[in-house]
C-alpha cells in the first residue's frame, strides 16, 4: 500500500527519501532476525510478525511498502495469508520466502498473488535485489520504447540503438536487455536473470549467466560512450545511466 516507497531507485536513495517499511511474516526467529538484519543493512525498516493471523492483521491495518511472507506458517499457512490479503484488496508487493523450491510451489505461490519467490537459503544480497525489484515493479508494462541514457530499446520493432548506432541482438539477448533495462538502476542477481529471461528455476551453477551478460555487454558498451553495464560483485548486474 503506501506509495512512498516505490519512488526510490537504489539502496542509497532510500535513506534520503525515508525508510521503506517492510513487514516480515516469519515464524522461525532465527530466519526472521536474519532477514531483518539484511533489510536494515539494505536501508529498509523491517518489522517482524511471527504468525499468520497477526501478520495478516498488521498487513491490512498498517501501511507497509512490501511484505516478505514465509510459505509455511503455524496456524494460518503463508498461501492462505496471501490469498486473504489479496481478497481484502491489498496490493502491497509480496515476496514469498520458502524452503520449498519446486516449480509447483513457486507457481502456486505466484498464482496466489505473490510478486516474487525466493528459496531458502538465500544470500542477503539476493533477497535485497528481489525486494527492490518488486517494490518498483508496480506499474503496467505498456511501453513501446525503453531508454537508458543513449541506449534505446524499441519493443515494437524489436531493435536496440545506442546513440543512433543499431545493435544486432539475438532473441535471447533482446529478452535479457529488455529485462535489465526495465529494471534500470536495480541490481539483478544471476538467479533472477535466469528465472526471468529463461524461465527456468534451477540454479544454473556455473558462470552461465555471466557469459550471456558479458556477450550482451560487449555489444552495448562497444562504442565510445560511457559504460552502461555495471557488475555488482558477488551479486549480479545492473544497467544504469552513467
Amino acid at each position, binding site marked *: 500500500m503506501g506509495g512512498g516507497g516505490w519512488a526510490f531507485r537504489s539502496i542509497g536513495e532510500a535513506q534520503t527519501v525515508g525508510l521503506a517499511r517492510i513487514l516480515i511474516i516469519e515464524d522461525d526467529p532465527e530466519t526472521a532476525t536474519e532477514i531483518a538484519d539484511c533489510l536494515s543493512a539494505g536501508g529498509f525498516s523491517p518489522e517482524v510478525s511471527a504468525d499468520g493471523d497477526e501478520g495478516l492483521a498488521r498487513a491490512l491495518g498498517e501501511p507497509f511498502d512490501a511484505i516478505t511472507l514465509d510459505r509455511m506458517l503455524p496456524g494460518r499457512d503463508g498461501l492462505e495469508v496471501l490469498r486473504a490479503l489479496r481478497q481484502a484488496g491489498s496490493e502491497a508487493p509480496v515476496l514469498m520466502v520458502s*524452503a520449498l*523450491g519446486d516449480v509447483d510451489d513457486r507457481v502456486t505461490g505466484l498464482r496466489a498473488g505473490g510478486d516474487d519467490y525466493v528459496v531458502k537459503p538465500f544470500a542477503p544480497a539476493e533477497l535485497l535485489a528481489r525486494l527492490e525489484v518488486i517494490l518498483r515493479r508496480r506499474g503496467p508494462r505498456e511501453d513501446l520504447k525503453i531508454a537508458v541514457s543513449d541506449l534505446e530499446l524499441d519493443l515494437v520493432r524489436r531493435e536496440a540503438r545506442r546513440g543512433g548506432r543499431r545493435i544486432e541482438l539475438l532473441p*535471447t539477448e533482446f529478452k535479457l536487455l529488455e529485462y535489465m533495462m526495465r529494471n534500470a538502476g536495480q541490481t539483478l542477481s544471476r538467479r533472477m536473470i535466469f528465472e526471468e529471461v529463461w524461465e527456468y528455476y534451477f540454479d544454473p551453477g556455473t558462470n552461465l549467466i555471466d557469459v550471456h551478460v558479458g556477450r550482451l555487454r560487449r555489444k552495448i558498451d562497444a562504442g565510445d560512450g560511457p559504460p552502461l553495464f555495471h557488475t555488482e560483485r558477488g551479486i549480479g548486474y545492473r544497467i544504469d545511466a552513467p
Partner: protein
Amino acid sequence: MRLRDLTRTSTFRLSLLYGLIFAFGLVSLLGLVYARSAIYLTHRVDGILATETDALARAPPGELERRIDEAASLGGDRTSIFGLFTADRRRIAGNLAAEPPGLTPGGPAVETPPSRAFPAPARLIARRLPQGEVLVVGRDVSQLQEMRSIIAGALIWSGAAVISIGLACGIALSLPPLRRLRRLQAACEDIAAGDLTRRLPTRTPGDELDTFAATVNYMLDEVERLMGEVKGAAETIAHDLRTPLTRARAQLHRLSQTPGAAPGELVRVTAELDDVLERFRVLMRISELEAHGRLSGFTQADLSGLVADAADLYQPLAEAGGVSLAWSAPAGVTAPADPKLLFEAVSNLLDNAIKFAGPGGRVDLALEDGPVQIVVTDTGPGIPATERAAVLQRFYRIERDRVKPGSGLGLSIVAAILRLHRFELRLEDAAPGLRAVIDCAPPTGART
C-alpha cells in the same frame, strides 16, 4: 484386461480345476445311470423274449404255426416279432419276412438295425426246435434306443453346460481379484518410483489379501519414517551449513576488496567454499527431486525446441571456454516428460561436457529420432568404464578430476531427474571423451 492375464490368475485356474472335477463327476454319474438303465432295460427285454420263446417252443407241433400267426396278429402294433423258419431258412409263419443274418439259434439275443426282414430296430432271439425249424422271437427296440440316446444327450449337454458355466464362473470370480491385484500393483509401482506417501488399498472387513496389504502398509510407514529421518538429517546439515558458509563467502569477498589483503589466498579459500556450496546445492536439489515423487509437469514435451534452447543457453559458455559446441535436432520430436526438469538434466550434461572438453575441445549435442535419444558427446578425458556407474550416485567424483571445481556433480542430478522420468542414462566411451545418452524410450518392462 487381457485374457492371457486372466488365465494366469490362481482364482481362474482353481475355478477351472473345480469345474473340470465337477464335470468329470457329473459325467461319471450320468454314465453310470445310462449304463445301469440300458442294461436293466435290455435284460427285461431279453427276459420277455426268453419267456415267449419257451411258451411257443412247448406248444404241440401242429399248434405252433397257428399260435405264431395268432401272436403276430395280436401284436398289431408290430412291436412284437415272431417268425418260424425251416432249417433251410424258408419262412413258415410269423411277421418276419426273412431270417435276419447273424442270428445263431440257441445263442444270445442280437440287436439288428431296420432291414428288409423288419422295418424297425429289433432285438431278436432264435431257437432251434426239435424238428429242425428255427423259431425267432423279437421286440421292436426303437423306444429303448430312443431312451438311450435321450440319456446320452442329457449326458453330453449337461457336461458341456457344467464346463462352460465353470469357465464363466472362473472368469467372473477371477476378475475382481485381478482388478484388486492391479490396484495393488499400481500402488507398488508408484512407491517404487519414489512416492513413499502412497499406500496399498485395503478394505474393512478385509480378507487375507487386505491383511497382507495392511502389513505392507505398516512396513511402508516405517520405511517412510526412517527415510524421512535420514533425509531430514541430510537436509538439516546441508541447510544449516549452507547459510553460514554463504555468509563466510560474502565476508571473504568483502575482505578481498579491502586494500592490503592477500588476494591469491582469498581467491583459493573462496573457491574451496564455492565447491562446498556447490555440493550442498546438488545434495539439496537431489533431495528436492526425490521428494518430488510424481511429475506434475508431465506433458508431451517438445524435445526439438528443448535441445535448441539448451544449445542457445550454453553456446556463449562454450565460446568463452574455447569449446566448439555443435548441435542438431530434427523438428517435431516429442517424448512424455517434464520439460523443465529434462532441460535441467540436459543443462547439467552440457555444463559437464563443456568443463571436461576444455579449451580447444568439442561438444556435440544431438537429438535422435527413433529411438528418441538426447546425446551429449565431449572430447574430454572421459570416465573409466569401472567408474561410470558410481558417478551417477550422490557426490561421487573421479579422483583425478578434483582439480575442476564442481565438475561431475551434476551427473547425480541428471540421474535423479531421469529416474523420475523412467528414462535411461547411459555413459559410453566416445574414444576419446564421454558420450552421455538420455534414452527417452527405454525398453518397456525394464521396470514394470
